[in-house]
């Protein structure tokens, strides 16, 4: 019985092109489009090494401390591409021509010359301010307590603050939201399974209801087949994102797969519950499935980056009850945090929603006799 019902439903689902378009083809196309649109955005967000001039006069040559400091942050991996100018005039010309972002005249007190504001100018100024602060501290210690000089920490101009074992990314949220959308599209699979089960929804449902196959078995095997097919679609999408598009889902791939599985359960249960409603026509049910999914994934940040954070801050309840937002947050938590509390909370919420919807579906589908069909 299991092989017959489950196996044939798997075959049927694979051949159901309409359903596969929504649950596999569309997400694959969207992932590719995201990749094309967003490639380079992360790189744009990173600070690149930029040209900074220094007037190479006697003061610069004599100020060994400054020379050492600026050279230490001007290697190949450093902040600056250091360009030495023989005179202030030459540095000015280079600045006006855009060859450098600014230049430093060492003099008695090193001074930064820039002609405009910007991130690179701010970085150069921050470096200089930090250097001057350290210089003042050292001079003060030398004057007041020279013996303590040895205890001064080495001068560092860059500091790495690590929140995570993974590098930050501005575009990952879009791919997480896409996975959440695909998870919710499991509603198509779950919905079809229920329509094919209910005598008041389809001739096929009536035909199966009059068979001697026990109802709970048919429901369970059908939904299991829907889950298997949809989860496979999720895995194909995940593999495509990971191996073809190179999207990094972090090190916790097992938990990422678990999140996809729970997401599939959510989608299937959502579609099943919606389809069990007899008063709505099939077209109306599909429209509702799409509308709810799109609203959820919009609020989870699929279309507008960062909207999920705004919703979480301003209408937190909406963020908590939005299953797509919970799935996105679960992926996010896995990628950025070393601990699992936040991930586990999200998974429990989504799992809870799925179980409640499955129970409601089971209650509503247990009857086999109808007022009308």
């Amino acid at each position: 019985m299991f092989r017959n019902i489950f196996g044939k439903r798997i075959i049927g689902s694979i051949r159901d092109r309409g359903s596969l378009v929504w649950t596999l083809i569309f997400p694959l196309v969207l992932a590719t489009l995201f990749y094309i649109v967003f490639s380079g955005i992360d790189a744009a967000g990173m600070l690149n090494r930029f040209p900074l001039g220094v007037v190479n006069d006697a003061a610069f040559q004599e100020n060994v401390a400054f020379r050492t400091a600026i050279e230490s942050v001007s290697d190949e991996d450093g902040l600056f591409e250091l360009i030495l100018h023989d005179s202030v005039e030459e540095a000015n010309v280079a600045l006006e021509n855009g060859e450098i972002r600014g230049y430093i005249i060492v003099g008695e007190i090193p001074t930064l010359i820039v002609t405009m504001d910007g991130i690179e100018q701010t970085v150069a100024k921050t470096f200089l301010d930090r250097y001057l602060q350290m210089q003042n501290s050292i001079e003060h210690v030398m004057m007041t307590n020279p013996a303590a000089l040895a205890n001064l920490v080495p001068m560092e101009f860059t500091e790495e603050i690590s929140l995570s074992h993974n590098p930050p990314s501005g575009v990952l949220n879009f791919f997480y939201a896409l996975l959440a959308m695909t998870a919710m599209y499991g509603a198509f699979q779950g919905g079809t399974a229920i329509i094919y089960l209910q005598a008041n929804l389809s001739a096929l449902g009536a035909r199966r209801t009059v068979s001697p196959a026990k109802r709970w078995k048919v429901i369970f095997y059908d939904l299991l087949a829907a889950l298997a097919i949809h989860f496979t679609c999720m895995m194909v999408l995940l593999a495509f994102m990971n191996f073809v598009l190179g999207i990094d889902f972090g090190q916790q791939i097992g938990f990422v797969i678990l999140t996809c599985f729970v997401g599939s359960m959510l989608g299937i249960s959502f579609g099943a519950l919606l389809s069990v409603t007899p008063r709505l026509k099939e077209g109306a049910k599909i429209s509702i499935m799409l509308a709810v999914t799109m609203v959820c994934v919009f609020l989870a940040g699929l279309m507008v980056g960062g909207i999920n954070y705004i919703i979480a801050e301003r209408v937190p309840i909406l963020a908590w009850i939005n299953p797509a937002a919970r799935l996105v947050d679960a992926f996010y938590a896995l990628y950025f945090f070393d601990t699992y509390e936040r991930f586990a909370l999200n998974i429990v919420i989504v799992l809870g929603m799925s179980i409640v919807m499955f129970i409601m579906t089971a209650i509503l589908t247990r009857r086999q006799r109808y007022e009308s069909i």
Partner: protein
Amino acid sequence: MIQVKNLVKRYGDLLALDNFNLEVREGETFGLLGPNGSGKTTAINCILSLLKYSKGEINLFGSPMKPDNYASKKRIGVVMQNVAVFNELTVIENIDYFCGLYIPNKKERNPLVEEAIAFTGLDDYRKFLPSKLSGGLLRRLNIACGVAHKPDLIFLDEPTVAVDPQSRNHILEGIKELNRNGATIIYTSHYMEEVEQICTRIMIMDNGKAIATGTKEELKAMIRSGEKVTVEIPDLSNEVLREIDSLSGLIDAKYDDQLLTARCVSESYCLSSVLDTLRKHNVGFGRVFSEPPTLNDVFLEITGKELKD
């Protein structure tokens, strides 16, 4: 095999089945005949425990029919009015699926599936998806899915709707064969010719009620009408028409659109007396038709309306 007593089914204010009674004996091909909306499908769906009903008693194979009466369900085959197959499965996969709901063992099932394919003449289409089949072939697939497991009792609800004549004959011959092989058949239709052709007993239904039950001969014997004589006459005077109308053994005679129609009383034959009267008055006539009474005449006489309507 089937006993239905005082079944009442309402759809809101509409009384769909009004104290409906039915008894079907083992080995019969029992026809439920009636116009659309007469309650045939509602009766079948109540018997199959798909519909709730307000009142009444339904027994199948000697036990009350309920949704969880799996023992009875196992012995039943159902061919729904609307084709009930998976559009994504091929012909052979569909038959195997539905047969598998009754016979889980694949080895036991395989020969039955092959037999059903041969029986419905779908051998050339076994790998076809339903969307590639004609209406007639689709109906045959629907039947194959309903009977592959060799049930003792088969419900066929309007299985020939929108079917070409070739497929219709194939289906009707197949139903006769199923009956010859021992299956009891319940056949619903609004096509009286089909019911007359294959059913051993017939129930005529109207407005949720059984208005007459019996063999086709018994049903026809219930009414006054017998033979119906139709004669093509280019021109017929009222005087001759009145004389024909007054012939003994005639119920009435009408002349309309160059056709004379004379209805005879049951068991009497009035063809010769009608033709003699025409000859006596030198009335020229063309083709002559003589028809025995049909179930439509039965329906017409009992309800006052045409079954075909």
